[in-house]
Every structure is written in C-alpha cells, then in structure tokens.
C-alpha cells in the first residue's frame, strides 16, 4: 500500500509519484475519471497497475493518497 502523490505535469498529463521510491510515471489509463467517481484502477506507462479507492468527486491536485498494488 504505497503512498503516492498524484499531480498534473506541465503537459497536462496525470503523473503518479511513489514518494518512498522517488519513482515517477505518467498515468495512461484511469478507470473512473469523474464526474461522480474518480479513481479505481490506474495503469501506468511502465505497465504496472494500482488501485485507488474511488473518490466521490474529482479532487484538487496534487493529492497524496494510499493506493494498492495490483
């Protein structure tokens, strides 16, 4: 269950940053991109997948959340 920070980069892409590992990847697919729900399964550009308990609203980024490795 790593702590990750989600933010938008200058190009407007969603970036996934694993704090502990200093590892940054862009998000290629997000299961629920709002409105109504935001989160779910997250696919990164290196192929790894994570699960974020869907939030009720589209959050204000950057945001630190706990995600589950799939």
């Amino acid at each position: 269950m790593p702590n990750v920070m989600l933010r938008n980069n200058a190009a407007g892409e969603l970036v996934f940053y694993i704090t502990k590992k200093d590892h940054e990847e862009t998000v290629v697919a997000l299961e629920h991109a709002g409105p109504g729900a935001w989160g779910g399964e997250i696919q990164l550009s290196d192929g790894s997948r994570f699960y974020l308990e869907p939030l009720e609203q589209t959050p204000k980024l950057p945001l630190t959340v706990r995600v589950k490795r799939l």
Partner: protein
Amino acid sequence: MTMNRQETEQLIQEVLEVYPEATGKQRAKHLMANDPSLEKSNKCIVANKKALPGVMTARGCAYAGAKGVVWGPIKDVANISHGPVGCGQFSRAGRRNYVTGHSGVNVFADMNFTSDFQEKDVVFGGDKKLAKLIAEIDTLFPLVKGVTIQSECPIGLIGDDIEAVAKKSAKEIGKVVVPVRCEGFRGVSQSLGHHVANDSLRDWVLHGRDEDDSFESTPYDVAITGDYNIGGDAWSSRVLLEEIGLRVIAQWSGDGSIPEMQTTRHAKLNLLHCYRSMNYISRHLEEKYGIPYMEYNFFGPTKIAESLRKIAAFFDDTIKENAERVIARHQSVMDAIIAKYRPRLEGKRVMLFVGGLRPRHVIGAYEDLGMEIIGAGYEFAHNDDYDRTFKEVQDGALIYDDATSFELEAFVERLKPDLIGSGIKEKYVFHKMGIPFRQMHSWDYSGPYHGYDGFAIFARDMDMTINNPCWKNLQAPWKRAGTEALKSAA
C-alpha cells in the same frame, strides 16, 4: 573522435572485463551509450542502488546530504552535528555556500556545533547532553533563529530519542528545534539525506507562520529552491529574476533563513534549480499551499534565455516584455564573451561526473562555447534524472551511474577528453594524468556560474584550465620523445 553507440557499448564491455563476473554484470547495468530518443530510463540504466563492496565510489552519506547540502547553507540556524566530533569538523565551511551577515551574530552557517560524543555518551545515551547543548547555544547566541540536530551514525545505533529532546527544548527556548534523522548509514548515498532534510523542513519548520498573515505579498512573488549559493550562485540568479520584475521572497537554502522559509507559502511560483535535492519540498509546497513549481536552468546564455521566457510566461505581459528586454540587454555582452572564448575552446571534448543534477544543466553552457560532451554521469542521481538527461546529451555519448574510480580512469584513458568536470576526489588523479580538470561541485574555488554574470566567469575558467600551458609539462622528462640519454640515466 566522436563515438557511435556500438563503439561506446564496446568500450563499456572492454572496461568491465577486469571485474569478477558477478560484479561486471552488476556494473554493466549502470553504464550505457546515450540514445536521445529515449523517454524513460528505467529500462536501460539502473540508478540509486547500493555501491558494490570492493569498488571505490565517490558517494557520500545521508548526513552529508542533510547537514552539508540542505541544512548547512541556512544561515540563521545552529546545526548541531550530534555525535562524534569528526563529521561536523571535516564538513565545516568546505562548500563555499556564501551568506550575508556577521558570524556569531546572525550567521551561524560557518561554525561547527557538535555534541562531541565520548564512550560514556554511547553507553548511557546522549539526550541529556543534547538538551544541555541546545540551552547553551541559546545562551551564547541569543539571535539564533533555530537549532537543528543532525544525527550522526551512533545516534541511530544507540536509539536516542532526539525528537523528544527537540520538542522539549523548543518549548524551553521558544525557537524552532529540528531533529534530523540523517544517520550516515541510511540509504545508498547522500540523496537520502536530501530527502530526510526536506521532510524535516516540511514537518518542523514550514508551517511555523501559517497563522501569521502580516506578510504583504505581491502577484510577482517567487521563491528560489535548490540553489545553494555556491560561490554566490543564488545571488547572480536572483538579480536576473529581480530585473524582470519578480520579487524573490525566499532562497532555499543558499543564504536562506528560517523566516524566509516560513513565508515561502506566499510565493506565486516556486523556481526549482536543483531538482534532485529539493523536488520533495517542492511537491509538498504544491500540494499544501498550491504553489506550482517550475524547473529552470541558469547555466549559459541559451538556457538562461529559455528559462527566463519560461518563467515569464507564467506571469503577465509586463514581465514577458521585461524578460525580452533583459535577454536583449545581456545578449551583446554574451556575444562578446562567446566571440572571445569560442575560438579557443571550439571542439574541445568534455567528460562530466557530478552529483545528481549538474551534468545535464551545464551542458548548455559548454555547448554555447562550442564544446562537446562525450561522457556524462551522476554519483547519486535517480531514474527521473536520467529521463531528463538523455535528450541533453548527444547520441552515443557515454553515460555512467555511480562510476567507480577505476571505471572513470579507464574511460578517461580511452576517450582522452580535453577537460574533465568532477569533484575533489577525482581532481588530483586526473591532474597527475595531465588532463585539464575543473571541480564542478564547488566551481574550483571560483564562481558564481549561474546567470549571465556567472557565464562570463565560467567561460574564463574553462579557457584558463584547458589552455593552461602546464598540462604538457606533467610528463616525466625521460618519457618524452628524443630523450634517450635521460632514459638511460634514469
């Protein structure tokens, strides 16, 4: 001689041959030939991994990263090197991070405060001594704005509770007291020390003035982060930002102070120079206070102009016009410098091996002078640094991560560069080999190198080093051609 990718790969294989098989296999993952089209580095280079036993690495420890790099330059705090006396003494005042003020009155960055651990402190614990030491500092230097406790290895080993001491002492003296868990054995390099120091700033300092809104902010407030004022670097960057109409409200951490850091939250934009050591706090500032960060590069006129335009684009038209005016104003001076030095430096080949950021930043400045980077590498960079490096370096150039001293020497012998930029640990080895060398950590007792003013000094220094007549005199007289008589005499 510019090498293509195959030739570079072959060179790497040949150099690795001397290692035992397992070591060679490990080291091969840290070396590569550059491919500028790569977007991601994690498939092609391994970084931020423990150095192998038996090889000579140039890395430092977590204490070096926290006390030396991040906390050290902050002028109004007393940094206690908590533990035996050596770590503090040997890291004192060697980094040339300049400050303004008076030593012992409002500047404490040049002093060595230490708890001077003895055997009995290791056996019975050093917490009492630490509390006494903090009270003593407050008595001797009443204008100190804060005290930090930089742990050395024994503190973690014996399990002292420095956090408890910090909390108690902070109440007693009414100042910021920061415990920094930067024991030297943590992590693989000083890079973890940067992270630990950033986290301690976040947890113990940053929110100190969140309730206080008396600071009058303007729409043009910016903060400089990741500039340690080596030889005055932050000052020569700051004047440029002020010239385009921005107000620098905080410097992290060169010539910085605790109140500055606590008012950083009023900045509209956070300008991040050293990404490697301060991206952590920048990310936090963005999340907590909504201050976006922007990486910039103030080495060499091309990159400065690019960065000034990028920074100005964040603000209104006045700033954009100012930026253009500032760039135009300096352009003629820069052209004159390039006209003077470029003919003397054109085509010279450079190898760089520095820290975690500088190689990719200084490439622009070398290229402005017509020089070529044939090899670049970092001591403690992570993969995100390599992501940013590939497009800056030419195709086929050698990339090395945490190069061992053997590898670096072997590469230099084969590539025969005209200049090497690295640190003090490499300096005299290459001097003795008769190769021009500049220390790129501390600018070889020169500087600043940032900004337009810095580029003038940079160009002069590179010329002074490469075209110095001393290098060809380093060969022993009897090894020169046509000295048979001397040879037999020797």
